[in-house]
């Protein structure tokens, strides 16, 4: 917990509490203190979890600009007996400053010194093997941090890292930052790696049972939710990449699978070789029995809990044991605090394929050595395919053979459809051809009916067994008998284009327009030229000229 008095705890939920924020920083030897007059809002917050590193953040809306890179201290005060008691939220580095022209103030984003770890992992001056404790200290020194636990014993502090894990064989960086390395170290040490608020040092923080209880006086009357209980933890599982090659240990060691409540650590490069089982016992001992309630609640303001503090919330007759992992304190003209703790990622492990140590088994395993860029695989033996597996295969064949045939039929239908689409005209296209518009140059070139034909030779009327047939075309009208001999022709004798029967009969009149037939019946008169006429005259025939 942050250092505070009993009066602080008693006064903060009271009606009529008076609050104060204070930000202090020094630039070029000049110390500046900002208070409520300069600060429009201050929001310290963090999002953390067990077995992770945590970086705390501070968001400030200020009427005074604070330069980038400034290290400031934030304190929050409650008035007690006419004096403010302040609790220390620690030091932060100004990371981003934005001017808000609408309010004429500055939005300032700050992070604690875990910010220094937010860069790509670099080569360290390390001689391997190196203990976990010395490795953390080396990183801290490299980043300009002080390791608070340098002289302490903690989970797996003396386990060794035998070689470089986070650079390739040529010393080039892999996809790691110092922050992600801290995440892995947090898992190895079964703690939470963070910056201590009081002394600015990097520490491995474990769950701190404060034995403190808050009740409804500290909670708002809306958004107060408590969920299921996590734990009690009795099993630790280590897995490699892609959630493979799991090993686990439990307390007691013969715990039934259905009773195992586990925390799983996945793809940790430090706990990746075949000696990884050696890391589990201390982790398990540290986390054994861990339990807490999922929660999400809004508070009127507590403020004195730290990351990883374990506390109780009493509501009526219910008491919820909680751990502070995520916290946001919103200090404006009033005070609100938002607290939540999530469920651990679900672990669905089939323990049939999990042992407690790689070295005791002949199981097939694969280790992805990212720094060496290789996969080391050991296959203990190649077994024959069992009869059962073969039978399963035959059953599968039988099951899917009809489907295969059906698929072939579908292929055939598909080809037919394609053929149909290629070789036929659509209704619209047919309409265009019929009305003479044509489609791609295709037009009606012939009409054939039961009584005749209309084609490039002309329009021919013809019926079966009829004595004559008639053709009308560009040279004239030609009526023929059944022997195809012309009976009547009225038209142009075109020696280049006339049919042979016409030429036979009327070849002497080539290139002339004639009417040629065997019989002509003239019912009234016959004019010949412009001067002659033959017609009835009385009971005889008159030939008249002029």
């Amino acid at each position, binding site marked *: 917990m942050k250092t505070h008095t009993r009066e602080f705890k008693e006064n903060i939920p009271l*009606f009529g509490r008076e609050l104060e924020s204070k930000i202090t920083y020094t630039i070029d030897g000049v110390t500046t203190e900002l208070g409520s007059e300069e600060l429009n809002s201050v929001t310290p917050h963090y999002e953390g979890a067990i077995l992770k590193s945590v970086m705390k953040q501070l968001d400030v809306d200020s009427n005074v600009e604070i330069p980038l890179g400034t290290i400031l201290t934030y304190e929050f005060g409650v008035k007690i007996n006419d004096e403010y008691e302040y609790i220390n939220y620690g030091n932060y580095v100004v990371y981003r400053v934005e001017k808000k022209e609408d309010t004429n103030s500055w939005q300032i984003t700050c992070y604690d010194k875990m910010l220094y770890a937010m860069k790509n992992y670099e080569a360290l001056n390390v001689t391997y093997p190196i203990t976990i404790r010395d490795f953390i200290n080396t990183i801290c020194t490299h980043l300009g941090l002080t390791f608070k636990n340098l002289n302490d014993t903690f989970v797996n502090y003396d386990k060794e890292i035998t070689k470089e894990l986070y650079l390739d064989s040529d010393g080039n960086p892999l996809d790691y930052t110092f922050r992600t390395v801290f995440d892995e170290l947090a898992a190895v040490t079964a703690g939470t790696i963070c910056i201590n608020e009081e002394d600015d040092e990097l520490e491995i923080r474990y769950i701190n049972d404060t034995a403190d209880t808050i009740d*409804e*006086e500290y909670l708002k009357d809306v958004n107060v939710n408590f969920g299921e209980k996590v734990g009690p933890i009795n099993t630790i599982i280590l897995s490699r990449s892609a959630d493979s090659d799991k090993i686990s240990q439990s307390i007691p060691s013969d715990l039934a699978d259905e009773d195992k409540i586990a925390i799983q650590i996945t793809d940790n490069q430090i706990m990746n070789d075949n000696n990884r089982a050696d890391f589990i016992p201390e982790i398990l001992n540290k986390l054994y029995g861990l339990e807490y309630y999922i929660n999400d609640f809004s508070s009127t303001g507590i403020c004195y809990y730290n990351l990883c503090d374990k506390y109780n919330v009493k509501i009526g007759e219910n008491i919820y044991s909680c751990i502070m992992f995520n916290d946001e304190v919103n200090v*404006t*003209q*009033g005070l609100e605090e938002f607290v939540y703790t999530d469920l651990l990622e679900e672990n669905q492990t089939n323990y049939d394929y999990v042992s407690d140590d790689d070295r005791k088994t002949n199981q097939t395993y694969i280790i992805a050595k990212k720094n060496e860029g290789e996969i080391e695989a050991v296959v203990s033996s190649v077994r024959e395919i069992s009869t059962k597996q073969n039978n399963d295969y035959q059953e599968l064949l039988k099951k899917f053979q009809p489907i295969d045939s059906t698929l072939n039929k579908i292929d055939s239908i598909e080809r037919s459809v394609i053929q149909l689409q290629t070789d036929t005209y659509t209704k619209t296209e047919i309409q265009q051809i019929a009305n003479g518009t044509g489609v791609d140059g295709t037009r009606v070139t012939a009409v054939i009916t039961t009584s005749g034909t209309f084609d490039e030779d002309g329009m021919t009327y013809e019926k079966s067994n009829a004595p004559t047939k008639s053709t009308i075309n560009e040279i004239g009208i030609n009526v023929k008998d059944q022997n195809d001999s012309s009976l009547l022709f009225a038209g142009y004798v075109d020696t280049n284009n006339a049919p042979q029967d016409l030429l036979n009969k009327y070849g002497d009149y080539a290139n002339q327009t004639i009417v040629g037939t065997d019989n002509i019946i003239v019912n009234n008169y016959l004019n010949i030229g412009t001067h002659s006429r033959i017609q009835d005259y009385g009971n005889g025939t008159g030939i008249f000229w002029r």
Partner: protein
Amino acid sequence: MFLNENSIIINGVSMGPYILEAKFGYHKLWGPDSGRNLAGTQTGTLLGTFPKITMQFRKLTKSEVELLAPIFDSARQTTQYYDPYEKSNISMTTYSNDWELTDKYFVDENDKNEGFSWAVISTRKRG
């Protein structure tokens, strides 16, 4: 509190000779988090106590109004008054309300404007 003629001085001008009465208000402002908690208990942040002085002015002559008008019209004033909580004279920056003057006949040094009320409110919390 009004202890003597100079208990209220605004922008260097003592109000004592011009007022018939002064009402001292000590107004609490509450934060937006005020309400009730899960226990039903009222909770909230007190932003502070903001003093307010409401003065009833007597009928004033033409020259008296001309002396005081710039003070009445100013956006901010420096107000000194005796505060019983502080047990001393304190100075505060204030803002004021509008003021209105009623004349029932011609005003000069003998015939005065009607009386009126005017108030100043502290821009900051006391203390």
